[in-house]
């Protein structure tokens, strides 16, 4: 861990304390520094997808655009609306950023680098991420503006609704790995969990997208709809805080998806000792999260925004039942096909010829998990088939209702005059 770098000659407690503080600074700074680059990346990619160039004036290829934006936000006047609750009004943007930075404390960057390897990591990051929701509600409430309040309500309804399938889908890697610790989940992924439970990965990714407020669940930042929602009364750097928090959160969920489902820092060569293994592992995690972040940006720029009622219906009537059934299905299969690491070790040491070669390629851990992965993958495909059949039936039902409505025979024929109700009928 980072703490063991400075235990030389100093008082032990002081050295540990300093190492921890440095670790906190390093872990938080990584996210913040990456943001500066990722905002530029996002604008360039959005531009390219929309068949234009994106910012290219400030600095080579527009790389200093983010600094220009930060400079603009820093020099704007800070207008506090009259009647606003000053303390809460100032705390809300800070809380929004703090909530996201605290998630980085439990992310395993490599086999030796992690901020705090607490044994309830999965529960911790769910709990801490919810502070962001609280921050939005505080912002809307303290702005003394009914539009901000209504916007904050809508956003909070969206965020708490999508928390349910998100936490239910976090349950699945926890169940497969048998531990809530993030490092434990990564180390238990001899085969990446996305191959075992792709539906769960999809549910987690989708509900996290809604948690962050990225497209297509864009209502949080839909400027065209409710005039910037809870952000109305925030100017300058305070608005910048909300903006930055959203971007950092978007990248954080990509990292979390990579850790929970794509094997985190695992990859060939990441098990080497010392700093080399650490850097390789960190590189793997970074590449996986960057690929996911590209997927997030791609979804953002191609899919239209959903309405609030469609969004709620999608969550409560589709995602929540699906994730409940998913947990049950995975639990059943995991019970029936428990990975037996002892037997796999035996097989690895007594195999000969081609078997030995194949086993040495994937390792005994992966061999132990292979039956569970394959059966669970088949079950997931089966579950998805059942779900899509149900959706087709439902869609046909709705379609028939609409067709009946449209082709209803008219009430009056053209030659018949609509008269007042004749007496006596």
């Amino acid at each position, binding site marked *: 861990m980072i703490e063991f770098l400075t235990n030389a000659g100093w008082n032990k407690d002081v050295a540990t304390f300093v190492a921890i503080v440095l670790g*906190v600074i390093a872990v*938080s700074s990584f996210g913040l520094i990456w943001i500066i680059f990722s905002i530029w990346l996002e604008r360039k990619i959005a531009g390219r997808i929309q068949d234009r160039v994106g910012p290219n004036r400030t600095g080579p290829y527009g790389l200093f655009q983010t600094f220009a934006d930060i400079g603009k936000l*820093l020099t704007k*006047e800070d207008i506090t609306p009259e009647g606003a609750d000053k303390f809460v009004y100032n705390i809300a943007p800070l809380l929004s950023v703090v909530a996201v930075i605290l998630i980085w404390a439990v992310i395993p960057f490599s086999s030796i680098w992690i901020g705090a390897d607490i044994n309830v990591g999965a529960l911790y990051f769910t709990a801490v991420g919810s502070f962001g929701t609280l921050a939005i509600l505080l912002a809307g409430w303290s702005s003394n503006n009914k539009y901000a309040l209504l916007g904050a309500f809508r956003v909070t309804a969206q965020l708490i609704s999508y928390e349910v399938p998100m936490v239910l889908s976090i349950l699945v890697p926890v169940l497969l790995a048998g531990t809530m610790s993030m490092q434990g989940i990564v180390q238990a992924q001899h085969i990446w969990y996305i191959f075992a439970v792709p539906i769960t990965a999809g549910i987690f990714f989708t509900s996290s997208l809604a948690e962050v407020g990225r497209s297509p669940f864009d209502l949080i930042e839909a400027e065209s709809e409710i005039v910037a929602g809870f952000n109305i009364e925030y100017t300058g750097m305070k608005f910048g*805080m909300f903006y930055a928090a959203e971007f950092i959160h978007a990248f954080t969920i990509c990292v979390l998806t990579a850790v929970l489902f794509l094997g985190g820092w695992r990859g060939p060569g990441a098990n080497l000792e010392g700093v080399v293994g650490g850097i390789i592992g960190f590189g793997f995690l970074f590449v996986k999260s960057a690929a996911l972040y590209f997927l997030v940006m791609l979804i953002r720029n191609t899919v239209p925004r959903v309405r609030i009622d469609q969004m709620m219906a999608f969550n409560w009537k589709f995602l929540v*039942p699906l994730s409940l059934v998913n947990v049950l299905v995975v639990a059943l299969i995991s019970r029936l096909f428990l990975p037996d690491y002892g037997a796999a070790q035996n097989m690895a040491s007594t195999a000969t010829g081609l078997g030995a070669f194949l086993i040495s390629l994937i390792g005994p851990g992966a061999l132990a998990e292979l039956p569970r992965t394959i059966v669970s993958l088949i079950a997931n495909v089966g579950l998805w088939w059942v779900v899509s059949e149900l959706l087709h039936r439902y869609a046909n039902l709705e379609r028939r209702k609409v067709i009946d409505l449209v082709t209803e025979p008219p009430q009056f024929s053209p030659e018949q005059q609509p008269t007042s109700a004749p007496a006596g009928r």
Partner: protein
Amino acid sequence: MQVNEWIFIAIAILASWVFPAMPLVIARFLQPRRPNKIKQETYECGIETVGTAWVQFKVQYYLYALVFLVFDIEVVFLFPWAVAYNQLPLFAFVEMGIFIALLGVALAYAWRKGALEWG
């Protein structure tokens, strides 16, 4: 040396307030400060505000919060079960299946009663 992991979290909670506060402090030195009454009025699309800001809100939000609460408590119970699952006998699955089925009935009830509609 074995150090309690949560100390990192405690220090992180205290120290991470510094990161967003820094730009705000810098901005305090760089920004102009000319408050006048018109600028500080509450925004309402350019017209004068009508009524107080603390309006009545739809009861639908309350219903969503209730259903969320039910499922969140359920998930809190599911987490320790999931962690210990690999060491439990098959009956644990049946027990939890009954628990989730009960909550599924609650969801179905809310669905049929229209508690999940936005309108």
